Each structure stands twice: as structure tokens, then as C-alpha cells.
């Protein structure tokens, strides 16, 4: 068959309507949904959820060290606490 030329080519390609939709709607939408799936969902939202868990695990690992079993350490913490409470009482609550 003879290759269509000029206006005939536009008609043969049905006014390029499909190509237009492909470029304006389908591709951008696909790219956007890929971005949502691969970045927002996996990194941002799931990252926040798992991050909360990780922060709690990390801080509990650190706080665990306070419970050393040495009574001297506990007494020291108690004295520091009393001093802090005393200072709060003295300066902040008049």
C-alpha cells in the first residue's frame, strides 16, 4: 500500500488522538503513580511507621543501661532528681 502523506497521514493516524492521550494522560499518570508507589508509600509513609518503632527500640536500649544494678548509681540519680525538683520548686513555682 502507498504510504500516506500530508493530511492523509494525519487521517491514517486517526488525528493522533491516541498518541495525544498517551502523552498527556497515560504517561504522566503512570509516572506519578510509580512515584507514589515507590517513593511516598515505601519510603515516606512506611518509613515514618517503621521509624517510630525503631526510635522506641533504640531509646529503650539506651535507657536499659541505667538499670545497672549498682545501688550507688541509683542513689546518685535519686540525689540528682531531688536537686532538680528542688530547683524547679525554687525558681519556677513561686
Amino acid at each position, binding site marked *: 500500500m502507498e504510504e500516506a502523506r500530508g493530511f492523509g497521514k494525519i487521517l491514517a493516524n486517526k488525528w493522533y488522538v491516541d498518541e495525544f492521550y498517551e502523552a498527556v494522560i497515560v504517561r504522566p499518570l503512570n509516572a506519578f*503513580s510509580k512515584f*507514589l*508507589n*515507590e517513593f*511516598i508509600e515505601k519510603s515516606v509513609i512506611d518509613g515514618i*511507621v517503621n521509624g517510630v*518503632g525503631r526510635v522506641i527500640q533504640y531509646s529503650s536500649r539506651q535507657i536499659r543501661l541505667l538499670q545497672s544494678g549498682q545501688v550507688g548509681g541509683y542513689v546518685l540519680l535519686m540525689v540528682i532528681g531531688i536537686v532538680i525538683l528542688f530547683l524547679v520548686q525554687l525558681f519556677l513555682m513561686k
Partner: protein
Amino acid sequence: MVPLFLILIPLAGGLAGFFIKNSNNAKLWSLLASVITLLVSVTGLLLNKDNTHLFLNVEWLSSLNSRFSVGLDGMGQLLCFLTAIGFPVIFIATWREDYKNAGNFHALMLLSQAGLMGVFVSFDALLFYFFWELALIPVYFLCSQWGGEKRIQATFKFFIYTFLGSLMMLVGIIYIYFHTKEHSFSLASFQSVRAVLSSHDQSWLFWLFFVAFAIKMPIFPFHTWQPDVYEQSPPAATMVLSGIMVKMGLFGVIRWLAPVLPLGTWLWGDTASALCVTGMIYASLIAMQQDDLKRLVAYSSIAHIGLMCLAIFATTQSGMQGVMIQLFNHGINIIGLWTVVYLIERQFHTRKISELGGLAQRAPVLAILLVIVSLANIALPLTNAFIGEFLMFNGIYSSVATQYNVVFTVAAAVCIILSAVYMLNMIQKVFYGDSNPLTSKARDIRLNEKFVLALIVMLILAIGVYPKPFFDLTKDTVDTILSKMNYKLL
């Protein structure tokens, strides 16, 4: 007595089920228990709505002034019927699945049914909370014992998520309890507490409840547990979770949030609606990218639930009526979709859309049934979802509770188009085109599977053509809730 039996039969059946060792006996026993429950539920539907057998109110924890108050109003009837018909359907659909410790598996399934029934019939906040947890715990064990490879991680996430939500709700319940006049947990006292609570109180209490329910539904951005859990759970548990358990969240908003804290609901309605709409579009777009059938259905479910939650906040007659009927429709449709996904995975040991193709030539019955269920998921006219979604769109558009009604309607309508994109794309890639070496040996579905899918398709078409019985059933509930949600009456 009907609501009591609805709880007791699955509860007793479940407890007895732990002692059954033989796999076939366990299946038969659970099917028997669930069919009896279904018969009781149908009996309840046949009774007149003021019949005394539909309500029961006896002493429970008298020192706390919490009563064992259960009853079936229209919405309760509808959801109990969904739970009652859902379980036998699920048992028959997964009949050929072999579980290790089948007795325990089926026992836990029945226990979760008891919990679900309890949630839907409770008229007492403490009782509601009690059953809410009872429904959750068996599912946790179902997923963690019988799930896929990453089940421990997924169920841990699920448990932390939902339990956090439950605790927030408990704080809210206790706060309201202390502000009721007679220090009571009853629904009536909770619904009259609005006179005492300031708008400031209602506004933060709203979030305590809404987050708990939003996690369950789930609403963006509290949804990330869902695709993981649906993917890792055994098929029967996935069907329970998505078909019935997510309705607990919507039910909670309709019964325990919107009528109890109308001012809070009105103040935050736009924010909550915006979350719903965002989640709908977001989940639909992500569904387009999924290659795993289970994850596709999971994200599609998030989008459809978002629409239902949006319609609740619209506070209109038709929107609320649409939500009611859609609660049932969504449950039926998604159980149908999961059944198809399960049958495909069982036969080919894969859920990847890219590895399948040309199934329609080998399994025509499965293809026809799946296409109808999928079209119902897109809400095509003549299917049940069309009725529900049309009413909801109508309600959202005509809403006076928000000034953004047009924006919400347009955004929600986009999701219908997107749902056609991903569902039709999935049908095309899985069922049409050329078959490959994996799918060329496919066989069609067996009798039990045909029965289940045919039943679901019949319900889809029947409700799509003649939804009136469902409207008559829920009309009273809709009117009551709308009158309670009307903040202007304060």
C-alpha cells in the same frame, strides 16, 4: 434472644473446635456452626423490628454500671447478616485448603466471628470495646500461625497499629463515661453526653475515636499495615479481614462517633473528608502499579472504603443510605475477588499478574464469574455497587455539611475511572491474551468454588436490580443517626 445466639453459637463452636483433631471434622464442624449462625441471623431478619427477641439488656458489670445490652437495629441486622453469610461462604470457598492443626484454625475463625457479631450488636460502650478486641485477637493468631513468609513482621505491625488505635478509643470511652449524667456506658447515655461536652472536648475526643476507626478501615495515612497483612495472611483470614472486619471501622464511626460527638464530627468533618479523598486517589494510583494480585485488591479496597467514609461525613439521607447498602455490597464483592485470587494462586503458585495470561480459554467459568465480580467492583450499573456508589455520590454532592462538596465529588469520581483502569487492566492481563507454559495447563474451577462464586454473582445482580429490601431494613437507622448528627439541634 437473637443477638445473644449470634454471639454464643460461634463462641461455643469455636471453643469446642479446639478439641477437634481431624482436619475434615474441623471443616465440617465450623461449617455447621456457621450455617446455624446464618439461620439464626435470617430468623432475626424475618422478625418485626420491634420484636422483643431482637433486644436483650441484663446486668453485667454492675459496679461499673456497664450492662450486657445487645440488640439488632437495621444496621446491626445488615452487618450481622453479612458476617453470618460471609463465614460459610469463606469456609466453602477454601474447603480444599489443608491447614496444619486444622481444629485450631477453624476454632479461631469462629471466635473472630463471635467477636464481630458482638461488635455489631453492642449497645454498651464497654461491651463494644470488649468485642472489638475479641475480634482482633483471633485474627492475630490466624495470621501469625498460618501466614506466608513475612507473617511475623506483618502481623506485629498490624497488632501494634490496631492496638494503639483501640487504646486511644478506650481513653475516649472512659472520658465520656465520666461525663455522662448517670455514669453509664450505654449508647443512650453516650448519645446525650453532647449536652455536657464543650466543643473543645468534642474536638480532641473526635480524634481519639476517629484514629481508632481510621486504622481499622483503613484511611490514609494509617493504611500501611493493610497490604502487608492481606498479602501474608492465609486466604480465609484475608477474606474475613477485608470482607467483614474493615466494616467495624465504618460501623464505629456511624454508631459510636458521629451521633455521640456531633459537634466534633462537624468541626473536623472537612479534614477527615480530605483524608478520605486523598487516600482514595492515592490508593487507586498505587493499585495501578501493583503486579501482585493480592496487593492490587488491597489498595482497591482502601479506595472504596475511603468513599464510604467520605459519604458518612457528608451527613445526607441518600449518602448514608448508600453507605449502609455498600457496607454489605463491599463485603460480598471483595470476598468474591479474594476467592478468585486464591483459586489462581492455588493452581499456579503465583500471584504475579505478569506471569499469568490467557486463562479465559482454559477456565471459562472462572473468567465469567471474575469479570462480573470485577465489574461490580467498578460499580457498573446493574451490579450492587452501582446502587451504593450512586447514592453516595448523590449524597456527597448535595451535602450541606461541607462547602467543598463539589471538589470531593469530582475527586471521588476520578477514583471510579481509576478503578476501571486497574481492574480492566488486571482482567486483560490475567484472563485474555496468549497463554504461557504455566497457564496452558490450567483447569476450570471445582464445584464448591463454582457454588460460592455463583452465589456471590447472584447476590451482586439481585441487589443491583432490586435493592429495596435493604433500604427498608436500614431506613430507621439512617433517620435516627442523621437526626443525632444534626449539630444545629444542640
